[in-house]
């Protein structure tokens, strides 16, 4: 028991270790249940082209949730900025300028969100929920609800540099020629933001805000300014996700992005960022994204009947969070068990595994 606790203790010193373990266990499980898929490289190169938008969103959301706030408007930014990009790229052939304007549109939405929350004091849940409806409505009005096909986009330098594939010669459809450039950009952004969260004053302020706005003010944090920066950054990341998604699909869909809301929030919370703020882990969120993406793919590849997929998904999410509690916060886990069990059976305060005579 001591040995197990010491392993658990060592593991908990590594950032997001429990969630990495859960991910590796899942991967191992799917390698056994669907070896044809998970023992081959193609599924992993596929993830490199489908995961980046989710990872960008989850990374931004890690900051927001870590600061004790929430942003529900990013699906609307994916629709709105995606539309801005698609129309400028397709109809006006603005190329890189279309990318820049689309990013600016996301920055603008995020900045307005920040103003609503920080200056007007509207709770972020309400402010960003309103923004979600407003900006997705604007996207529908501007696009007329229509989809836009970006025919020939893959010929452009924008496509090649943002979401193209690295080419190593040979058959273009071989797995090694399917590694998406957007995975590289996403990885660089994630590393950069990890340093911001863990080594920069802004990251420190974000976690202070998550602990307490009042205490943050006392220690000299400009709460309003940092919150505006926070939501603006989230808007920029959502806009970049929109550009990646639109280019990767070579299509703008009027309702794009709506499926990401719960997935991104689930990925962040499974990853170990506290919903109450004050604690955030980018590595945890990235592995949360891996889990979210790998579960459905793995269950389908294993031949599980469609109606069971959601149920098993939910169970895995719960198991991941319980595992996280056991490893990362054993005292909360013991307290939870104590509340569930009748008093004589509950673990004592001194040792979780001792039963009173």
């Amino acid at each position, binding site marked *: 028991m001591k040995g197990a606790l010491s392993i658990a203790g060592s593991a908990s010193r590594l950032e997001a270790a429990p969630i990495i373990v859960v991910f590796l266990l899942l991967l191992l499980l799917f390698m056994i249940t669907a070896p044809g898929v998970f023992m081959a490289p*193609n*599924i992993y*190169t596929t993830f490199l082209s489908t995961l980046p938008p989710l990872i960008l969103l989850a990374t931004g959301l890690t900051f927001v949730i870590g600061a004790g706030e929430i942003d529900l408007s990013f699906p609307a930014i994916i629709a709105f900025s995606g539309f801005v990009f698609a129309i400028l790229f397709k109809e006006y052939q603005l190329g890189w300028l279309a990318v820049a304007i689309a990013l600016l549109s996301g920055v603008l939405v995020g900045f307005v969100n920040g103003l609503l929350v920080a200056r007007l004091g509207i709770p972020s849940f309400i402010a960003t929920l309103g923004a979600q409806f407003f900006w997705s409505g604007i996207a529908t009005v501007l696009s007329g609800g*229509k989809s836009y096909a970006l025919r020939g986009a893959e010929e452009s330098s924008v496509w090649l540099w943002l979401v193209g594939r690295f080419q190593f010669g040979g058959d273009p459809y071989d797995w090694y020629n399917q590694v998406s450039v957007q995975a590289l950009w996403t990885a660089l952004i994630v590393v950069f933001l990890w340093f911001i969260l863990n080594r920069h004053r802004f990251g420190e302020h974000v976690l202070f805000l998550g602990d307490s706005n009042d205490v943050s003010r006392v220690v000299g944090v400009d709460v309003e300014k940092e919150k505006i920066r926070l939501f603006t950054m989230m808007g920029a990341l959502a806009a970049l996700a929109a550009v990646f998604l639109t280019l990767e699909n*070579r*299509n703008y869909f009027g309702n794009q992005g709506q499926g990401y809301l719960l997935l991104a929030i689930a990925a962040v919370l499974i990853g170990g960022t506290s919903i109450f703020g004050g604690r955030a882990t980018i590595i945890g969120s990235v592995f949360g994204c891996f889990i979210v993406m790998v579960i459905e793919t793995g269950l*389908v590849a294993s031949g599980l009947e469609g109606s069971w*997929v959601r149920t098993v998904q939910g169970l895995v999410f719960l198991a991941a969070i319980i595992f996280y509690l056991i490893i990362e916060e054993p005292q909360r886990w013991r307290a939870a068990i104590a509340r569930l069990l009748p008093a004589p059976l509950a673990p004592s305060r001194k040792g979780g595994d001792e039963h009173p005579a």
Partner: protein
Amino acid sequence: MRMTRFLLIGAAAFGLMTAASLAQEAPGAGVTIYMQMGGNAGDGATLARQTGAAAAAKALGVDQLNEQFSAWAPEKMIEQFKQALAANPSCIVIMGHPGADAFKALVDEAVAKGIVVTHGNSPLTPLMEAYGPKGFGYAGVDLYEGGKLTAEEMIKVGNLKAGDKAMVYGVFSQAERGLSEKGLADTLEKAGLTVERLEITQEANSDASLAVPVLAAYVQNNPDLKAIGTQHGGITGILAEVLKKAGKKPGEITVGGIDLGPATIDGLKSGYVQLTLDQLLYMQGFMPVLQCVLTAKYKMPGLNLNTGAGVVTSQTINDLVSLIDAGIR
């Protein structure tokens, strides 16, 4: 023409069974399939497709049938195609909703890798022309014709006249998928009706119950409304509830929809829904699996099957109820 197609398919299936019995091996042995089912597992517009696909896979002895559900979100369908492609199955069955432009590069890649691709529910005509000989078939309604047929029956059953007001609720924004509502609205307009076209939101597209208050308010706000048309299975299922909430009596407004979900049966029985286009979802599940086996094993080209056979009315629904409950019709 339709009868000829059925006979051809029947002959192909018979030939396949005979060949299989001679070889003493299940026709689908060695065949693995990834299949997009569309909505959510078990919903009224998806269940019969699942049942049909499972029945075909079992009858043909297919090694594995992997079902994918997308809540009708086009970008999810593209993502699912990529995941299916990575799994390198014998065959991938896709939904046509994202459109030919969105799918072209992926279908090119799949065919280049020797994977059979076929599709259903919403046609991808340019891809069918390009890859028909490689097995890119279609099992689904000829969307515009299906909408037209629904409208013609609505005019007949509801005695609709020039000048009457109608509303068509659909996904007009999706280029190919929207053709069914376009066919419906165009036909009503050609008959002289005044038609208002309303777009179904993505939320209501995935969960039709969200549209109940919207439509109830619309009906109350338009007391002169004579007809409602849709080609969305989930929405058809809620229309009886909408009209009850709006204070309408059965038959006061002529309703034409699509599919035969349990809620639609109640709508037909109660007289709130006059007719529904039966797009034979079971066939939309069964035929693509058969297509996969025929092409993967015997190199047969893609079959184009229009499953929009006709409409079901409150007079003809009773014989079908047990089959609908079993998820077959």
